[in-house]
């Protein structure tokens, strides 16, 4: 957390990017006669994007920074398990990511006089907590990839907006082609985000139990996958000896 306070990229991620996406979202989704639920996608969408970006990339970036600073090999050599170190980094990222909702709500209110529609507080809170859990699992699973493969950063960074599409951060996934909806259904955040938006409107399906269950189920699968991945990476890193390569 302390490192992030002085990092310009961390500030961009929680303040600047969410603000930009919120402004674009509000202009695009707030034309004359726009339905209130669409506004929720603009206001919450920008914050969710920022939250996801930080969870998804910041942990990986911190590993890349360890590599560039020449400390990555030491991290592997210390007695503390790698997953504990990464979990700490990711938890810090998630806490930092929560700030993303401040600029989006402020811009929506002060710049566009737009407020969040009525929110079912209990369902929203549960959905958000489950979403955070899924972000944590995704980040913990993806971050070790950065330790092993230097190309993981450009590939995952490059597909950042692909996740925005597949998870339905700023529009419903039901608008996507069937094959894309299928791909999105494999991502835990997709279901939690659906639940979050459903908690801001009385319209449409409200299958919260199914959505929460799908998110938690996929999250558990990610965690199991991560266990195997960590073992593989600890072994491969020692064999390849490429940790110090910048």
């Amino acid at each position, binding site marked *: 957390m302390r490192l992030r306070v002085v990092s*310009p*990229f961390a500030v*961009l991620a929680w303040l*600047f*990017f969410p603000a*930009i996406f919120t*402004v*674009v*979202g509000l*202009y*695009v*989704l707030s*034309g004359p006669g*726009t339905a209130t639920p*669409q506004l929720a*996608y603009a206001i919450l969408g920008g914050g969710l994007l920022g939250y996801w970006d930080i969870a998804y990339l910041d942990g990986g970036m911190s590993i890349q920074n360890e590599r560039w600073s020449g400390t990555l090999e030491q991290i592997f050599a210390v007695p503390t398990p790698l997953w504990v170190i990464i979990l700490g980094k990711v938890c810090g990222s998630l806490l930092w990511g929560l700030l993303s909702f401040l600029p989006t709500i402020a811009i929506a209110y002060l710049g566009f006089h737009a407020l969040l529609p009525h929110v079912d507080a209990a369902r929203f809170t549960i959905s958000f907590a489950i979403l955070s859990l899924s972000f944590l699992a995704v980040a913990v699973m993806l971050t070790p990839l950065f330790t092993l493969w230097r*190309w993981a*950063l*450009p*590939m*995952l*960074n*490059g*597909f*950042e*907006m*692909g996740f*925005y*599409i597949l998870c339905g951060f*700023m*529009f*419903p996934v039901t*608008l*996507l082609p069937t094959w894309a909806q299928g791909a999105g259904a494999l991502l835990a955040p997709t279901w939690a985000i659906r639940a979050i938006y459903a908690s801001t409107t009385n319209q449409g399906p409200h299958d919260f139990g199914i959505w929460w269950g799908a998110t938690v189920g996929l999250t558990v699968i990610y965690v199991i996958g991560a266990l195997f991945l960590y073992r593989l990476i600890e072994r491969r890193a020692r064999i390849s000896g490429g940790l110090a390569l910048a």
Partner: protein
Amino acid sequence: MVAIFARSTYLQYVALFQWATIRGYVGYKVLLPVTQILFFVQLGVFGSGRSKALYFALGNALQVTAQAGIYGVIATVANERQHGTLPMLLASPANRLVTFLSRAAVNVIDGIVTVVVGLSITVVVFGLDLRHANLLLLAFCVVLISMTTAGLGLLFGALGLITRDAITIANVVYYLLLILCGINFPITRLPGVVQAISYGLPLTRGVEAAREVAAGASLRQISGLLAGELLVGIAYALCGYGVFRLLEAYSRRGGLQEAF
């Protein structure tokens, strides 16, 4: 002079253009622009309906030229610093104008390739109709916008001489263009002062011209917009060169070239 320019352009590509590996290139130059276009087109379809898909596709496809023009150009100066070669570059007797422009040349070509790939995929995915468009004229708009955004990149790239956070600046400039240049909504919806800023930026007139071309406009109908776009680009490139020379002297005095 031409030989120096060509050699400098080539070396700048192989040495500093960090997307030179296939995976890096695919990540940053294929996945990122294509998904950006698809995301905003889908957002636009959600907000305004499928009939407006072409509006969003063209705007965002042309905006991704700025990815090469701004990130690429700014990153080359920033990378010289990171690799520790900036003091040597500034100590060399090489012609600054040639050195500086050669840094933009690859990015202009790269920006054009990015738009062609991104727009082609979007046209297929959303079934966009470009039958009324003069494709040659549209291609000219793409080339022009790639050059004008590189002009803006040159201006901000010069800041890399005195700051370690040039890439942060690149991010800010690139994403602000999404709001200021009429990429996803008409700039007439922006407050008056902001509209004035919009017309002082590259992309704004170029995107407007490209949209008119897609709707069937002729060269004569959009010549004013293209001339304005060109003038804005030249102004930024000249300004960038001036700022580069100014900051070069400033960074030498303060020993800022080696700050890392």
